[in-house]
């Protein structure tokens, strides 16, 4: 640690890499935090957790007792055990007693990505509600055709304010906060939609996973979905190195402008489709050219056998796009986690060593950037897998019942998990640095006191 600081001081280590090293160190030492308690007011299983994206300070939780709560994870409300344990009590609670509150379980609670003045909840009572955080009043109400399983807002959207809501219904609806109406109805799934996720690379791309086992990609500017992930289409390992891709990118830049500013990863296949007919995939194996041609032909209005492709046997219960937007992680009720290359739409065949996953409920995955980890709720534990190898990196045991959701705060390198045992647990790096500092300070203090005493003795003599 001190060596690295010294290196940083001497300019041997770049600031970025230094911070990354520190962060990865911290992430690899995550454990159940003893000094940070979140006092959950919920009386039901916690279904959704999110720390706000602007400050990284307010944790929003939604629970199946129709309550939503907000906690300040930076500043504790009170302390216990001689200041050792910081208690974080909820600063805002909305529950059934609230006149505008949900009637049934809140399945999803998310922050408005731009600031913490609004948050959105989706509930089994068929409503998606937009709340003003400060007044805890409902600003907007969207009536859905069925139970809402998941809502999502794009973190990079600048041109729209759409809430994507996955419900019991087969259609994905996009609710426009600006107008208070449904902007889109995306149909394509054959069963309820368990999970919805916006791309982290393009504000127009939405990924949805349904109970029919399909993961669909939607470009909200066009009709229909433009990709259905197929578990049988696979590539081995990671994408070819960046250099090749950048070369390819350079080759196919002609149409990239049409795709908007930064949807490079997603727009690439389209470009390729137009440029070279059978070279649809960058996959090193690149088999089944016939199927690829079929898919190419059918793309815009897509109704075909390819449309029936499934990503999981059973329902897709969790989706998570990596922070760079290049990969998609999906969890299914077949107790599998799959890593998809977004660009090629292929299963990368990474074997995640999961034991079992919850099947009945949507689960919320989390990823961390630098040591590329994915946090998956596996029954009563949360497991951290290495994204590329699928090896179990850590296992977090602490919940007494099923874990439903987790959220990794990359700012603090803290993991929040919520489970059916009504608890929100904080997993934080062990206080290595502070401990070291304290030790150092203590030794210094000891040194000084020792000398002081010595002087005192001398004076006395």
């Amino acid at each position, binding site marked *: 640690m001190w060596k690295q600081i010294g290196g940083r001081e001497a300019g041997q280590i770049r600031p970025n890499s230094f911070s990354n090293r520190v962060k990865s160190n911290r992430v690899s030492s995550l454990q*159940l*935090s*003893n000094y940070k*308690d979140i006092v959950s007011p919920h009386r039901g299983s916690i279904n959704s957790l999110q720390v706000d994206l602007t400050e990284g300070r307010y944790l929003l939780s939604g629970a199946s007792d129709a309550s939503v709560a907000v906690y300040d994870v930076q500043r504790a409300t009170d302390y*216990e*055990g*001689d200041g*050792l*344990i910081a208690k974080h009590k909820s600063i805002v609670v909305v529950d059934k007693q609230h006149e505008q509150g949900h009637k049934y379980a809140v399945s999803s609670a998310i922050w408005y990505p731009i600031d913490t003045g609004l948050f959105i909840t989706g509930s089994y009572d068929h409503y998606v509600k937009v709340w003003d955080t400060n007044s805890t009043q409902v600003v907007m109400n969207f009536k859905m055709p069925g139970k809402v399983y998941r809502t999502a807002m794009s973190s990079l959207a600048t041109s729209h304010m759409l809430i994507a809501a996955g419900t019991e219904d087969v259609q994905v609806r996009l609710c426009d906060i600006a107008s208070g109406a449904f902007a889109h109805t995306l149909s394509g799934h054959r069963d309820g939609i368990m999970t919805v996720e916006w791309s982290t690379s393009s504000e127009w791309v939405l990924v949805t996973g349904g109970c029919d086992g399909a993961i669909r990609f939607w470009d909200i500017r066009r009709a229909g979905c433009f990709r259905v992930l197929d578990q049988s289409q696979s590539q081995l390992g990671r994408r070819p190195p960046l250099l090749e891709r950048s070369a390819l990118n350079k080759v196919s830049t002609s149409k990239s402008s049409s795709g908007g500013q930064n949807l490079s990863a997603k727009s690439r296949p389209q470009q390729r489709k137009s440029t070279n007919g059978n070279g649809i995939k960058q996959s090193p194996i690149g088999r089944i050219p016939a199927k690829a041609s079929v898919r190419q032909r059918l793309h815009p209005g897509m109704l075909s056998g390819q449309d029936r492709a499934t990503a999981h046997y059973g329902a897709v219960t969790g989706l998570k796009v990596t922070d760079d937007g290049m990969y998609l992680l999906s969890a299914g009720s077949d107790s599998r986690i799959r890593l998809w290359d977004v660009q090629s739409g292929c299963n990368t065949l990474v074997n995640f060593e999961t034991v079992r996953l919850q099947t009945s409920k949507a689960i919320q995955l989390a990823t961390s950037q630098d040591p590329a980890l994915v946090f998956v709720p596996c029954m*009563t534990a949360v497991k951290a897998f290495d994204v590329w190898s699928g090896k179990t990196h850590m296992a977090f*045991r*602490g*919940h*007494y019942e099923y874990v439903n959701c987790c959220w990794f705060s990359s700012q603090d390198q803290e993991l929040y998990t919520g489970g059916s*045992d*009504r*608890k929100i*647990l904080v997993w934080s790096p062990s206080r290595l640095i502070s401990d070291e500092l304290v030790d150092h300070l203590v030794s210094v203090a000891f040194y000084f006191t020792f000398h002081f005493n010595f002087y005192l003795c001398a004076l006395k003599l």
Partner: protein
Amino acid sequence: MEEERGKVRALIEMATNSTEREVDPRLLKAIKYVVRYSDPELRLAAQTLMDLMKRDHSQVRYLTLLIIDELFMRSKLFRTLVIENLDQLLSLSVGFRRNLPLPAPPAIATILRAKAIEFLEKWNATFGVHYRQIRLGFDYLKNTLRFHFPNLQANAARIQQERREREIKTKEILRNKFETLGQNLSTIKEEIQSTIDEIGECLDIIRAKEENMALAPLDDDDFEEFRSSELRQIRLDSLKEGEKVHENNDNTVVFDALRELYKLLMTKHMGSVQESISVLIRVEVPDNRLRDSMLKELIDIRNRLVLVKKKCEESGCALATNVKEEEEEDFWEEGKIGPTEKGSSSTPSKPKQKLQNLAVASTSGEIKNEQSDNNELRKTDSNSPRSKLLSEAPVVEWGSFLGNWGLDRDFMANQRGLELENHWGRVDYDAVIPAEKIAELNLQATFYKEEPVEIQPCRAPLRKGGLCQRRDLKVCPFHGPIIPRDDEGNPINQKNPSSDENPSSDENPIQKNSLIDDETSLDLGSDLSEQLAKQAIQNVRDREKEEGRKRKIDKQSLNRAKLAKVREHNEAVLRDAALASTSRSEAVGEDIDVTNGKKSSTRNKKKTLAFMLRKKVTTKDRLAQRLLNTRARDATTRQLTMGEEETYRENFPNQW
């Protein structure tokens, strides 16, 4: 190392492989010992214990849990190892997961669960601050699953809290007392001082009078008489007593005042001073100097009081002792009389008598005198009813029940001041023993005790010299009836020459008896009491004899009266019967019949009873049957009564 490793495992397995309720303490000690010095051992132990917890038998799990607890409370490393899998441990020991219930013997399983919950609570209280997992588990079991925790810690804390509150309260009270004392101290001091001054004045007055009186020195005259130091002591005491100022008509008022003041001093001031001293000792105040000075002052006052008291007692000893010991003396009055009287009769102690002479004539007289003195002194009549009551008070054996003498109330059955854990069930603390029951329980059995009788020796002179030492109740088989004799063996009450006859062994006791009788009749002066007793016996016997005679006469007269009555009754019956027969036989000629009947009855009287009876009955029956058919009812009734009459007749043949 491998052997060592095996050792822990073997030890643990051995310890858990038992049916006991406890882990074998020796094995446990061995495990702890092995584990203490090496971390790998401890890791292995943790591993083994967790494996054992998965065994499908509650007993094994139970013992394992006990070992885990032992190590958990002692080793940090063990804690960190166990806590990683705390949820598993809990699910295995508490069995809160529905798909993982506790295994087979259900009785032990419940014990296991209770123990696990208890341990979890203990761990949470001790280490909860340092281990989030413990808190989490505790919280989950308590708040989510609503397990019932024994709450030992909280209870203990509550009790502690209560005790503290009580202490604080008492402290508060003490402080208040201290404050009031601080305010009142000066007035108390003044009061005491004034009392002391008054007492001093009284004493001065008495002393002045005393000096006037010339004290007659009695020291020298019979000093040589006292043989023992004890006696001398008594003598000296008596002299001192004599020296003291005695109350007389002149100084009664002063003495009264003194006594009153003394009483005031003893009861009120002494008590208050003692109390305030104890308050000062117990109180806790920030400013100790004030308290100490007050304490010092109070102790001084107390010492002064003691001094004054002493002085009082010395000067007016009679008063002091009287006032103080009056109760006691009264109480023991009756007991005292006995021994003194006995003493006077058996071994008369001369100095005592002298002392009595000094004061009054005899012991009983002294007491009486004292009483009268008291009465005079106190001018109260409380003594006479008291003694009256005492005289009629029952003498009871001492017992603990005397503590509740005369209390007519119910007793709490289960509140005896003893904390008795009842092992047979709940204790009803409000149970009450009713007063009647208490009285019944306190009923004292009295036992008959024979009066110890001193059997006098015969003391008849023997031929070989000496006196007969045989002890018989009344009659010595060799020397006849036992009579009081002098040292040579001569009977005391016989002044006549019969003294020669007495020692003769072959004397006839009966002759002797008569002799004695004669003697008693002859002289009464020798042994008056015996004479009197004999006379009394004689009188009683005479009276008894008289009574017996009278009774006999009474009986005879009674018999005679009875017979007379029977006779009268018979006559009456005969008369009736005669009347009836005449009236029935001749219903028409009444007038004549009446006279005739009368005649006949008179005539009948002369005949023998039996004959008349037989005849009368038959005639009566015959006539009734023949003539009075119409009155069937009468006849039947008579017939019915016939049987009775017959039995009656058999039983009482001479009475009808």
